[in-house]
Structures are given as structure tokens and as C-alpha cells.
């Protein structure tokens, strides 16, 4: 009877709810099941970021969090400064965000696939000192 009323008032069928919940819980179960995949992911992530900025590898961290209907990946990557060597070639415009540099920020990618990781625009000439947040160590 309750289910009939639920449907009457536009609530989604329970089988659909079940399917969504299952997909999410299995992803979560799987992430625990494959630590090597998580390690590879972390390794690749740090490697890519370290091509652009110098990172404090010893203090990097990546965690996965269940948030309502999504699994979110949270990466905490302390940045020590700009890389001395030339930056790699610029990527196509669609993935650029604005160029302000704020070190030690949380990068997060949510399950819907919209990355919010920000990075500096590539600068081929002598690089200005980055605007470091208060309290962060200045590179020497």
C-alpha cells in the first residue's frame, strides 16, 4: 500500500533505488578490493602533477569518500614550488582553468566526472615567484 502511494506521488520505484545503491556500494567494495589499482592511480596522479609543480611526495595523500550518491576522490598534494625545468606543451583550451596559483589545495574529482583541479598556465620564459599562501614555506 505504501509503495502504491509512493508511486502515486512520483517517488521512484524501489528497484531503481536498489540499483543505484548497489552500483555505488560495489564501487566502494571494489576500491577496497584492489589496493594495487589505487596505488597505481596515486602514483600516476602524483607523477602528472609533479611535471608542473614540485610536490612534497612524502606528504601526499589520496582518499576516497562516499558522499550521498557519489564516490569522491580527495587528493591532498602539498606543493613546494614551481618546477625549474621547462613546462610541457600546453594542452587543448577546453581543459584550462584560470591561472592563479594556490598551493596545497585539495583537488577533488567527484563521481560525475567534473575535475576541479586547478593548475598554472604553462610559462615558457623565466617564471615569476608563485603567490604562496601564508605560512607555506618559501622555496630557496
Amino acid at each position, binding site marked *: *500500500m*505504501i*509503495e502504491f502511494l509512493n508511486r502515486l506521488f512520483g517517488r521512484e520505484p*524501489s528497484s531503481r*533505488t536498489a540499483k543505484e545503491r548497489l552500483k*555505488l*556500494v560495489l564501487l566502494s567494495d571494489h576500491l*577496497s*578490493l584492489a589496493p594495487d589499482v589505487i596505488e597505481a592511480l596515486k602514483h600516476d596522479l602524483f607523477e602528472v602533477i609533479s611535471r608542473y609543480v614540485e610536490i612534497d611526495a612524502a606528504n601526499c595523500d589520496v582518499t576516497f569518500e562516499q558522499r*550521498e550518491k557519489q564516490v569522491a576522490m580527495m587528493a591532498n598534494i602539498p606543493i613546494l614550488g614551481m618546477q625549474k625545468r621547462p613546462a610541457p606543451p600546453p594542452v587543448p583550451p577546453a581543459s584550462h582553468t584560470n591561472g592563479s596559483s594556490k598551493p596545497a589545495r585539495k583537488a577533488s574529482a567527484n563521481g560525475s566526472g567534473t575535475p576541479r583541479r586547478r593548475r598554472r598556465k604553462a610559462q615558457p620564459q623565466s617564471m615569476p615567484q608563485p603567490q604562496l599562501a601564508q605560512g607555506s614555506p618559501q622555496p630557496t
Partner: protein
Amino acid sequence: MINQVVQDEVPVAGDVPRVRGRAIVVTSGKGGVGKTTTTANLGTALAALGASVVLVDADVGLRNLDIVLGLEARVRHHVLDVLEGVVTLDEALVTDKRVPKLRLLAAAQTREKDDVDTAAFRDLIGTLRDRFDYVLIDCPAGIEKGFVNAIAGADEAIVVCTPEVAAVRDADRVVGLLGDDRKVELIVNRLRPALVRKGKMLSVDDVNDILHLPLLGVIADAPDVIVSTNRGQPVALDPASEVGESYRAIARRITGQDSAAPEIPREKTFLGKLFGGRS
């Protein structure tokens, strides 16, 4: 490990010593007869009556208490994290927003039952009894290490049994293993009165002629349990659900608020089926 004490878990203030909570293991031997559903719903019903309740999932590696309760997205840590000192008990306990006095302590999903030290688990149950009125332990299927761990620390047991030969046989085995020191009671689950009448299903008496246990409750088979698990909303929260009412009645019996003998569900009339049978 210093545990923060949460206000509503300490019902008695001042000098009066707290009465120790009850630790009840929900077991069966046979899988799939409704242990997890029963643990979830009894826990919910007891908490709704005002008792402080913690549900402990002892099914390491195949946890489901979280998903039956609809709390799977909020599980961050589990029993082994607590036993191994990775987190405190309070960090591991999951709160149920719908039922303020209910907490869940989840099982580890990617570990094994052998990883749990029985004595440590028993101590944990003891700690929980000091903080909660009721500690309900969801036992895994079988009679191996998982079962041995789950019953450690519980001085009461609820045996869940369906009226089917294989389930009764396994329940009988489990009753033997529970020994004489524990209070053991029976819940007969998923009864289909129409089939019993036709002689195609064992009756409650048939089951208890073999098991000889005090009867705590009888629950009819009903499709709304499937729907409730789909949604992660225990039927005990649904005032219109008959199965929910059965669980609520069992909870009242457990707390002593109701001492009447359990009702045996009756066969549905045609009209009963139309308006009350399915939700």
C-alpha cells in the same frame, strides 16, 4: 583508547550505577533465513521504544547489515579498525538519522573472519554493553569462526528459522552449539499460512517440536521486506507494514513491555490481500 561519551548513551546520571546492557546474538546456521533483516528491524524497533541500541555486523567479508539499514554510504570504519586500534569506537559507530538512539558498527568488507580475535571481540561486546541498553550481533551463516566470534560475549541468542526442513536442521545444530549457558529464543520467519494449511509447509508447532525453544515471535513472508531492503528503509519504520508490526511486537516482548504469547500470522482473505498484503 579514550572514547568520547555521547550524551544519549548514558541514560543514568549521578551516583546510580548503570545497569549493564543486554548482548543478544541473532543466529540461524542456515543462510538467507532473515538474520540480518531481523537484526536491523529489531534494533530499529528497540531504539524507537527509547532504548539505546548498537548493531554489530559480525559477517566479516560479506557485510550486509549496513546496506539493509540504508547506511552503507556512511560507513567509514569497521570492527577490525576498532580492534586493531586504527580508530576509536566512537569514530567507527555510524549514526542513523532516522533513529537517533541507534548505532551501527560495520564489518570489514575486505578482511576475513579469521582476522578477528575471539577474545578481543568478546571484550568489545563487553565495552558496548557498558554503553548501550542493547547490543545486537548479526551472526554470519554457518558454524565456523564467524559464528564462534559472533556468539562470544553474547549471553542471549535469538535463533531465526524459516519453516523449511533444511533451515530447521541447521537451527537444531546451532542450538546444540549455543550450549546451556545462554538464554535462547526462537523467531520463525517467512511463514506462509496458506501453504501451512495446504500441508505444503511446516507449521510453527512442527518447527518447535524439533527445536524446543521459547517462541519470541512469528513473522509472515511478505514482499514489502524486499522493497524495504531495496530502499534501505527497515520495515519496522513503516507503520502500515504487518512485518514491521511483528518486529515491533517482538521488541516489546524483549523489553518486557509485552508479555502476551506471540501471535501466529493468519492466512489472508481475498480482501486482506488486496488492501493489506502488499506494500
